[in-house]
């Protein structure tokens, strides 16, 4: 699914240059679950943004399904995000004014799905994360775990090939964390998704098939958990 080769991404900050990702090379197969682990500031989120067609690298190739994301136009990148990649955020990022169902529907808007289908698919997506009875609740009326379930439903409603999750359990207690991870694992298995999950939590990373460790912007090692 992904083939990164010599990817570098730098930011200009306070007049200086900071390399968030340095010469990163990484391959992720279709249907694989990879955890990216590292300390705060190690470049995990930047790498996830590069994988998610949100950022272009300064150097290198971000191969995705045979295309180099670094060479696609803004319109093409938008289309990739709209159709092929689902995002789950640490802070849930739900639109506070929209109900759970409408938040899920928001992911279908770019695909110009007819309204009736949009509602049906959003309802099914919420059902699949166990929130059918919360469809018309506002985010503020949901617990943190429920909000993250809505976030997952929103990511999956468009049936993406890849699910990218940025610290999806970072804002949750341990019990809820385990519930969410079980849900993600089930969905990953059922859907045959490629799952890339950024975390600093070793317990969460331990559930993945492979762990890519990041330090100072470098992907230093990519091992299967049992090999670590």
């Amino acid at each position: 699914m992904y083939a990164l080769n010599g990817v570098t991404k730098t930011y200009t900050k306070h007049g200086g240059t900071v390399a968030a990702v340095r010469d990163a090379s990484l391959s992720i197969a279709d249907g694989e679950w990879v955890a990216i682990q590292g300390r705060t500031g190690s470049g995990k989120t930047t790498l996830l943004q590069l994988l998610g067609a949100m950022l272009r690298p300064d150097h290198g190739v971000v191969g995705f399904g045979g295309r180099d994301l670094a060479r696609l136009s803004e319109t093409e990148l938008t289309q990739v995000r709209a159709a092929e990649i689902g995002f789950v955020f640490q802070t849930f990022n739900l639109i506070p004014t929209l109900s759970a169902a409408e938040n899920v529907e928001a992911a279908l808007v770019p695909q110009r799905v007819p309204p009736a289908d949009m509602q049906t698919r959003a309802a099914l997506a919420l059902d699949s994360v166990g929130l059918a009875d919360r469809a018309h609740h506002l985010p503020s009326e949901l617990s943190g775990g429920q909000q993250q379930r809505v976030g997952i439903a929103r990511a999956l409603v468009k049936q993406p090939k890849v699910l990218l999750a940025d610290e999806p359990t970072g804002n949750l207690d341990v019990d809820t964390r385990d519930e969410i991870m079980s849900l993600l694992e089930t969905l990953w298995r059922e859907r045959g998704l490629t799952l890339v999950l950024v975390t600093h939590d070793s317990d969460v990373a331990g559930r993945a098939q492979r762990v890519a460790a990041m330090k100072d912007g470098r992907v230093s090692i990519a091992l299967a958990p049992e090999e670590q």
Partner: protein
Amino acid sequence: MTGKSLPAPQGSRAAAPGRRAGHRPARSGHGRWQGRPRFFFVFLYRELRRRQRQALLIGFGLGLGVGLVMVVSAASAGVAAAQAVALRSLYGISTGLTVTEPARHPGALQDPDALLTGGLAPLRSAMTASVSRLPHVASAAGGLQLTELKPSASGLWTNITVDGTDVARPRLGPLAAGTIVSGREFTPTDGAIDVAVIDANYAIESKLRVNSPVVVARTRFKVIGIVRQAQGAGSADVYIPLGAAQRLGRSPGGERLSHQVNVIYVAADSVTHVADVQQEISRLIPSATITSSNDLARAVTGGLQGAASLIGNLGTWVAAAALIAAFALASLLTIAAVTLRTREFGTLKALGWTTSRIIGQITGESAAIGVTGAAIGVAAGFAGTALITLLAPELSASIPQDNGSGKTATIAVRLAAHGTPAITATAALLAISGALLAGALGAWRAARLQPSDAFSRIS
């Protein structure tokens, strides 16, 4: 918990779990909006509800601004209408022009019982016909404005003003402004006989009635009508047929005025052609003084002119300042709102929303606020307009008479602010434009956001 099916493929008609029995009814308006833009309107409605106070603040700001513009415009239109009323009352025609030529040697001849032209030079009568043939001239009539030194009832010598009137066109000239309160007005057959219409005030002073004789230049005229001019506006004490005035009148040098006039009253075919007609007459009679209703409006003094200045200067500036402040407020609050929604818009971009779709959403919100502002502004404008009409005092308008008498005519005019559909539409458009301008600035801010702003800490 997760054993249920994942989202059905596109086009699936499977029943939505949310619609099954026992599920909570759609309190969020699900199903209320149908069709392709449903999500747009749902999102717009929810966002405006969240920012209700801010939206109302912007709406009220814009409303206040455009309401003031509307009030000032309506008051300005009211002043223009009041000026037109004053001019019509004092001069008889609002599309009219008056053509005169100042006398080169205003004579010192002050013979008692002599009917003299005073400060106006004679013009050939044929000039009236030439003027009437000019483009955009609806009609033209000649007249003679004369004065006669006569002893008054108190024994003092006083000037009475005598107006030679074209009896075929009595509605074109100073008589047009008056109302016949007794007897009748001139008819075309009166040109051959010595009849007169006298001013109501003069009739009282001189104890004259219909059928009374009135003496002008030692000639007896039979009073056929009494005319009441607008308050203080009588441009003549006695109106006699033009032919009689030409027969009896004298120039300052003592010459007879046969086939001569000293004023030509001209009516343009429309207000928009007044300036064109003025130009044409200038070409025909280069030495003439041509006074249009616009010139007369500039000569108006008194409370009405004060109101015009107040509205034209202070009112316009206050309205402009309020409008600019409202636009600035709307712009700042919209940009602030977009900044606070950085993560929200970043998330939408991460979900695949295009920049143009996000800009459309912001513009839609701004347009809705603009419509609210327009409604508030139009309501405030109508209320302000009604208040001005209700509270405005009667204003006086003073206009110098152009018959050489040196008199000033004064009339009381009630100022009524006029809200027109054009003013209302302009005010509404201003409010919506202001909101859209603010929306454009917000959209510009949003267009610069990146999908990676979904990870922003601003929310």
